[in-house]
């Protein structure tokens, strides 16, 4: 009896590959503790190794793009906007190993690394676009500090503490400006109490945690100006934040 023809290799746009890629992207975002949510841009490659009846190992190479949603945001990934090229896009490359057993997917291993679009490429399409800056740049740190102090001095909401700086961009002409995005958390103080002694203000315990996100833009030249917008997400059961360096990769 002629052997059954070999199965055609799974295509990267086949529904089965897309379903596995979507499962992998949700896993990656669900296990990330810092930065932003990533969305699927392209399935670069897929390889299936059969382990037996209804038991396959799938190797995916995924090309992701950073969205504007911080990882602590409750916004569903489908509603998160992919950062545009002129916003200095960030790409993620992930290799994911999954098992499909009796139709059920599980991730066995994943490895990702991200990198920003090259400044040269961005300046080619947008000569005046601000470029991503290092998160420990002194102007960036000064802008985040000024923005958070400005918010805490004006708000009747709880006093907010900085969790992490998500991204920062600096523009030098035609004006000199710094724009920053950072994650914050509510503390057990009101802003008024914090004026007395902010040192006693602690982050709320896990079962009451309230994370948020701020964007700020500081004009340095031709004149000083600062605009800040902070939004708290409200308590999200089970959502925690681990200080950088504490979480497992």
């Amino acid at each position: 009896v002629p052997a059954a023809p070999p199965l055609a290799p799974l295509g990267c746009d086949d529904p089965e590959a897309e379903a596995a890629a979507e499962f992998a992207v949700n896993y990656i975002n669900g296990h990330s503790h810092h930065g932003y949510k990533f969305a699927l841009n392209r399935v670069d490659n897929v390889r299936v190794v059969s382990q037996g009846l209804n038991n396959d190992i799938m190797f995916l190479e995924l090309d992701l793009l950073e969205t504007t949603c911080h990882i602590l945001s409750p916004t569903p990934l489908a509603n998160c906007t992919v950062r545009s090229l002129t916003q200095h896009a960030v790409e993620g490359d992930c290799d994911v190993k999954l098992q499909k057993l009796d139709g059920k997917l599980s991730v066995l291993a994943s490895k990702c690394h991200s990198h920003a679009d090259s400044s040269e490429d961005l300046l080619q399409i947008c000569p005046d676009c601000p470029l991503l800056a290092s998160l420990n740049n002194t102007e960036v740190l000064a802008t985040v500090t000024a923005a958070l102090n400005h918010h805490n001095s004006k708000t009747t909401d709880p006093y907010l503490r900085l969790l992490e700086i998500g991204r920062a961009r600096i523009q030098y002409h035609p004006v000199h400006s710094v724009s920053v995005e950072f994650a914050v958390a509510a503390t057990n103080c009101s802003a008024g109490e914090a004026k007395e002694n902010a040192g006693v203000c602690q982050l709320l315990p896990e079962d009451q945690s309230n994370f948020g996100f701020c964007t700020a833009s500081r004009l340095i030249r031709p004149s000083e100006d600062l605009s800040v917008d902070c939004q708290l997400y409200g308590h999200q059961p089970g959502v925690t934040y681990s200080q950088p360096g504490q979480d497992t990769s």
Partner: protein
Amino acid sequence: PVAKRAVAEAAQHDKVPRPVGFVPPPPPCPGKIRHFRI
């Protein structure tokens, strides 16, 4: 004597005739780009 046909001629004859307008299927990978390429 066996006359060896020219390879080109043989290849021509052996080539499976393709219907007019035949478009080869796209390669299975990489897949489509959903947003843009960096």
